[in-house]
């Protein structure tokens, strides 16, 4: 066997190195310097993230089971940024008493899920894909259950676990149909045989596959676990769930649908996705309106955001892919900012209800300012990044120029008004509502502040600095054969 092909997966290898170092330190380092583990992890992962940008390679490995293209590379790099921010945020938390013995596990499990996502992103064979998927989702179940003391944590873990297994069963069933139809699990082989094949079996297979990934993306109606899990899980895990795994899944989803089932686009899955997008955006918004718990609220908002991300998939073109990656990046910074503020406040005062935020601006101007940026960005208000990402995702969707897509976009646009309503509710709580017993002023930990600053800068700059989007478009167009068989 030719080991040189491992060189085509430098990011995975780098990640493994980081993981091993952390693991070794966690196992053998003396107890007294254990507390420096989080910082170490951050440093290592930071170095890795930076190095990422020098390890760009293109090529396939393992007889085409694994492919590394510009797009996958950039996608992983984007995810790394998010993961790094999550790590930085959770330094203080990881050093808290409750975490004393288990902080190592936290980081190791997270790193493992990242590894799984890498595999998902660049796998070109369903076996590898499934392995990646499971690697990405199983450790998260453990992480959701991380709060030993809190009951919600366990309930959330149970719900997540059962739904996850169920959905993977469905997904695998779908795969078995695919295998039964085409006798191969290589993306490329399947893609060619999908052409003008519209057997019911294929339709069921595609539906099951969509359901399987839809679970990770929490698309309606596969989303019902989301709110409970987000609420129950420890906040860093929640933020991780909400952005990183969602981002990875979104990319993988696009690859799967476009590259594998692209030939069935207009006949089969365009309409499935069409319906699912409308349901996702609308129901997500409808649920979000009434939430008072900030984490649940963000959960539903992230559901509707996932719907918007799917607009990039339904566009099924380079602009769509680029806009999707861009949207994920913007979504990472915005959502992490929101979660960061929520997390800081939860850490400080244990308050998680939006009503507790009343008059926050008087006491903690910077936190509320960051939160406001995040809300405006999520709501798609210029000049913040969210506006640009929404605009481009719509643009990508409309590229194909079908009237039906115009209607879809119109529905999505009308939904942005509803979403703006509940985002403004948070802003209102912080800036306008009278403050009888507002949270006292406090100084959040260094890590949190760094993370929030990064996010805030991201929110302001990612949009205006057009070079990022331009770069993403170039990446999307760079030698990808994704859209070859589309019809």
């Amino acid at each position, binding site marked *: 066997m030719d080991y040189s092909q491992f060189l085509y997966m430098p990011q995975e290898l780098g990640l493994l190195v980081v993981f091993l170092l952390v693991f070794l330190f966690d196992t053998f380092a003396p107890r007294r310097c254990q507390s420096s583990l989080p910082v170490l992890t951050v440093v290592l992962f930071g170095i890795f993230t930076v190095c990422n940008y020098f390890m760009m390679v293109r090529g396939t490995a393992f007889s085409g089971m694994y492919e590394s293209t510009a797009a996958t590379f950039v996608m992983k790099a984007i995810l790394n940024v998010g993961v790094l921010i999550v790590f930085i945020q959770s330094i203080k938390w990881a050093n808290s008493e409750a975490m004393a013995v288990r902080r190592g596990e936290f980081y190791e499990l997270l790193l493992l899920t990242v590894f799984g996502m890498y595999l998902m992103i660049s796998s070109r064979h369903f076996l590898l894909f499934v392995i990646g998927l499971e690697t990405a989702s199983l450790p998260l179940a453990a992480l959701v259950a991380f709060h030993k003391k809190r009951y919600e944590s366990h309930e959330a873990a149970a719900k997540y676990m059962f739904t996850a297994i169920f959905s993977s069963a469905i997904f695998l069933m779908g795969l078995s149909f695919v295998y039964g139809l085409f006798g191969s699990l290589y993306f490329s082989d399947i893609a060619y045989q999908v052409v003008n094949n519209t057997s019911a079996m294929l339709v069921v297979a595609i539906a099951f596959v969509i359901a399987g990934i839809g679970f990770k993306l929490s698309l309606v109606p596969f989303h019902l676990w989301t709110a409970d899990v987000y609420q129950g899980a420890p906040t860093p895990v929640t933020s991780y769930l909400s952005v990183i795994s969602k981002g990875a899944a979104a990319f993988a989803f696009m690859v799967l649908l476009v590259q594998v089932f692209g030939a069935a686009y207009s006949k089969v899955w365009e309409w499935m996705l069409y319906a699912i997008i409308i349901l996702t955006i609308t129901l997500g918004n409808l649920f979000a309106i009434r939430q008072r718990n900030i984490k649940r609220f963000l959960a539903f908002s992230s559901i509707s955001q996932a719907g918007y991300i799917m607009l990039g998939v339904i566009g099924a073109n380079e602009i769509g892919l680029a806009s999707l990656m861009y949207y994920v990046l913007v979504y990472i910074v915005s959502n992490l900012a929101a979660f960061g503020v929520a997390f800081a406040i939860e850490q400080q005062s244990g308050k998680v209800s939006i009503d507790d935020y009343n008059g926050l601006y008087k006491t903690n101007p910077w936190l509320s300012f960051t939160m406001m940026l995040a809300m405006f960005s999520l709501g798609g208000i*210029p000049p913040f990044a969210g506006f640009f990402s929404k605009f481009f995702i719509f643009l990508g969707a409309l590229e194909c120029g079908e009237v039906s897509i115009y209607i879809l976009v119109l529905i999505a646009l009308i939904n942005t008004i509803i979403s703006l309503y509940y985002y403004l509710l948070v802003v209102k709580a912080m800036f306008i509502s009278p403050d009888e017993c507002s949270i006292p002023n406090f100084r959040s930990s260094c890590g949190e502040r760094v993370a929030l600053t990064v996010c805030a800068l991201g929110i302001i700059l990612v949009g205006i600095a057009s070079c990022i989007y331009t770069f993403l478009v170039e990446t999307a167009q760079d030698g990808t054969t994704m859209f070859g068989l589309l019809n």
Partner: protein
Amino acid sequence: MIWSNILIYFVIIPLLMLGGLALCKNIKQVRAVAVVGATALMALAIYLVVEFLGLRAAGNDAEMLFTEGAVMWFEPLNIHLALGVDGISVVMILLSAFIVFAGVFASWKMDPLPKEFFMWFCLLSTGVFGFFISIDMFTMFMFYEVALIPMYLLIGVWGSGNKMYSAMKLTLMLMGGSAFLMLGILGIYFHSAPAGQPLTMNILEIASNNAVPHSWQYFLFPMTFVGFGVLGAMFPFHTWSPDGHASAPTAVSMLHAGVLMKLGGYGCFRIAIFLMPYAANELAWIFLTLTGISVVYGAFSACVQTDLKYINAYSSVSHCGMVLFAILMLNTTAMTGAVLQMLSHGLMTALFFALIGMIYGRTHTRDIRKMGGLMQIMPFLGVGYVIAGLASLGLPGLSGFVAEMTIFVGSFQHADMFHRVFTIVACCSIVITAVYILRVVGKLLFGAVQDEHHRTLTDAEWHERLSTVTLILAVAAIGCFPNFFSSIITEAAEPIMKLFA
């Protein structure tokens, strides 16, 4: 390079103000920064007008001037940061500069959080100026929303009455409008160039390509027109206006009625009409009916209001309806009238709201039934109010008359009977306007003093006098020397209206 273009500084200055305000420690510095910035903007605007006239006089008859230094922004989508102004945008910029200047002084004693107030104020003006100077649909739309969103906090935090409701309603309705607008703009973008050529967001190129298929125009024209029409308070999308104005603080009402609502009219004309002349011609009658309604309708419902701000909000509905009405007449004179009306309505409504704010700040009520005989107590404000009222009911020598007459004459030149009859209907509004203006003036200023406590109140202070006088002078200037403005506007409107000749 774009820095060589003076237009960009209309955006830079407010941003600098924003930064400066962020560093301010106390109210004095805040005021200093605000005044300096506003004055700079005013000076720049006047300089721009001079330059513009100079270039025109020099025989530069390009449709847009100051277009140099366009910067490629989002290369894959061919989105530029492209600037340019014609006569219409120039006068709009001048108007905005005036209102911002007056607004700063009208909100001199803003409390609480003056710093934050002025920061939002600056963001709003950034959006407004950016909208007027850009000729790229994307940047236009971006600045448009930048101008809209600060309203929420400006009303929500510093407003009065049922402010949360009003602020939310205003923001959501306007954003709803811009949702339609976004779809319209995307649609135009995808049909901006004939097959094979690169798509573009640049208004001038789209207009010269004129490639939007007629079938699409039928869909996109209503989208964009309604999108902007919501902000232009077009019936039946005007209901944000009364509540919003009633709850907004003085300066915000000034800015909103004075400048923001103009974005609606300007956009309707610059994007909807200019880029889709065919549909504009075909569908004009629908919107003509709507705006014709809102002209009379607003005036009538102003007659029975008892809250000063509601009265002015409804009169704004009527006057802005006049703007859209004239735009839809699709001829040069009416178009000139529309822009003049935007100017005059902007100034006099700003004046109105400033005075109402000052009166409210003293009497703490806006209910005209609770006030009376204020003329004896605060003669300066009283006289100012009377002048504003006379301007609004179209007294010759003040701006209102010029604008309305141009609109009426222009609209009546339309060859079609339907349009002329509607013009006469619109004319009726001048009587109704007189009715409600005089009703207010009579109840509020004249007669005996209603509330003995009011006798102790004081007249305007220096900064209030300053902002009032600024606006009154502007109103009178337009009223007395209309040809100066109308000639600038006409030469800008003519080439566009050729599309319909």
